[in-house]
């Protein structure tokens, strides 16, 4: 087992989820209730990382932040390096995980009947209080599902990590990249261990997602009565 890679993977997954949660929550809540005409475009942009090959995203990231690009040069002058660093990996990880975090949360908020918001308003609750006391408690299974999906997907990400992070031990070499290395080096024993670890974590995350989804459905059924 490549423990440094394991640590990098977990750190990346935790940080991605932490950064993405407030961002995804705000985006998802807005998308769930907005009547704005441009909503489908935003939704399509958010889903794009699901369809694009990770190499495309990695490529554009290198083009945008690499040496020679205006942004990369400017950042380098300020002492910030994003290519082949954990920070850069985190930034691109947040981007590609947006659909995994936003989708379940958006669905959960959209499932809260509008009449409950109105009931809260006529009961004297401000929109902010309505969000905290009514909407969020009803949408929390969606939040947990989004977090579990983000963790699982970050652990499994490969192409983007390789292109953006390179393969630096203890910095950007994740478990999935390390697994690739071990197979290349014919160390099948270690490969087995890491593959099994990834399968286990992903299975656990997916089980959690489905369990939360069940809770969410029960909540919705409850509201429709």
């Amino acid at each position, binding site marked *: 087992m490549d423990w440094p890679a394991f640590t990098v993977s977990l750190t990346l997954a935790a940080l991605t989820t932490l950064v993405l949660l407030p961002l995804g929550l705000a985006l998802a809540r807005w998308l769930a209730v907005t009547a704005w005409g441009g909503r489908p475009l935003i939704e399509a942009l958010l889903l794009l990382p699901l369809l694009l090959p990770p190499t495309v995203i990695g490529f554009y990231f290198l083009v945008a932040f690499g040496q020679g690009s205006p942004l990369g040069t400017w950042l380098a002058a300020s002492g910030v390096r994003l290519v082949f660093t954990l920070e850069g990996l985190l930034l691109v990880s947040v981007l590609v995980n947006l659909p995994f975090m936003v989708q379940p949360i958006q669905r959960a908020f959209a499932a809260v009947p509008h009449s409950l918001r*109105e*009931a*809260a*308003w*006529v009961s004297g609750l401000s929109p902010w209080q309505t969000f905290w006391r009514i909407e969020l408690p009803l949408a929390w299974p969606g939040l947990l599902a989004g977090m579990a999906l983000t963790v699982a997907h970050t652990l499994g990400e490969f192409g983007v990590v390789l292109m953006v992070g390179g393969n630096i031990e203890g910095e950007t070499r994740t478990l999935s990249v390390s697994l690739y290395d071990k197979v290349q080096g014919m160390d099948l024993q270690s490969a087995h261990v890491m593959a099994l670890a990834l399968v286990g974590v992903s299975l656990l995350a997916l089980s959690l997602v489905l369990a939360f989804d069940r809770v969410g459905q029960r909540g919705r059924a*409850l509201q429709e009565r």
Partner: protein
Amino acid sequence: MSGLQVQLQSVTPIRLDAEFDCGAGELVALVGPSGSGKTSMLRAIAGLWTPADVRGHIRVAGQDWLNTATGVQLSPQQRRAGLVFQHYALFPHMTAHANVALAAGPGWTAADVQNLLSRLGLAALSQRRPVQLSGGQQQRVALARALVRVMPTPQSASDVPDIPNPLPGVLLLDEPFSAVDAPTRQTLYRELAALRQKVSVPMVLVTHDLAEARRLADRVVIVDAGHTLQTGEPARVFASPRNARVAALVGIQNHFAGRFFKDQPGWARLRWTESGASQEAIDLTVVDKNKIDDDTPVTWVLNGEQVDVLADGSTTNQPETGATLLRCRLVEVLALGEISLCTLTPEALTSQTITLNLTTRLLGRLDVKAGGWVQLLIAPGALHIMPVREVG
């Protein structure tokens, strides 16, 4: 000025022309078909819906909740509107107690809320969530949640029946009885009547059920296509609808077309014709109240409860002044226990049908079955005549 005054006009997104009021302690029912705008009017009072181009005012206990002349528009939070939603909209993740406590003002303690729930028969159920409650119980929780919104303190409700304290809000009920079964509905009707003895607040009920409006409301407002067509005591509106549309909306049977001709002073003839070009006609004698011009097309209603049914061939000894005797064939008899729903066709106007609810006993005494003949004695008072042109 106490109570609620509503006067609203808008063009988009829906045409709205509403004007009605509701005194403190009064129950006014907005009645109309679905899509007529009655729920929109209720939502406008609560502040949940305001058309962009609205003009008018909503005033409660002398305070403007909306006034387009002065630019006042209170938010739903600022209005004291207790709204019972059609499907109650209880918060599913909260107990009955928490649902009510959430809407209660600072004058309420948890014990006060529990006390109110007890008075509504929910003492043992206060820690249950909505999903664990029956439809009727959910409705009571929703009513309690609406009530605390219009009661600044638990003492606002009077312990002395008939001398309630006026409260600064309105209670709005959006089809609150539509989602419960019939026996529960009867219980809830009684509870609402009892509640009215204790809280003096304008109550506006939205319903499409005429019987419900008749039973519960002090006054009804007939709503159609965003317009308030007629306001009045239920018995009055049902007995004398202002125009044909109101008559149709309140489900009046025996609703016909005709022409009004002036006759000798104080009297007139109602010529009953079918709408087509047929020459068949029946002249009915009516009282001329000088409200309708000579030779005017009218619609008119025959009030079945004021029609006498006589055996065929019999004559009355002392016919009422101006009463018309009409020979009719009994086309169909639907026996519904003590009452039979009878369809009759006048001999002289075979294209028209009259519907009467006759007691099965009367039919037995007349010894008449479907296909047989009877005579209807129609007094002028049984006829209600309206000009064809709609008002409003």
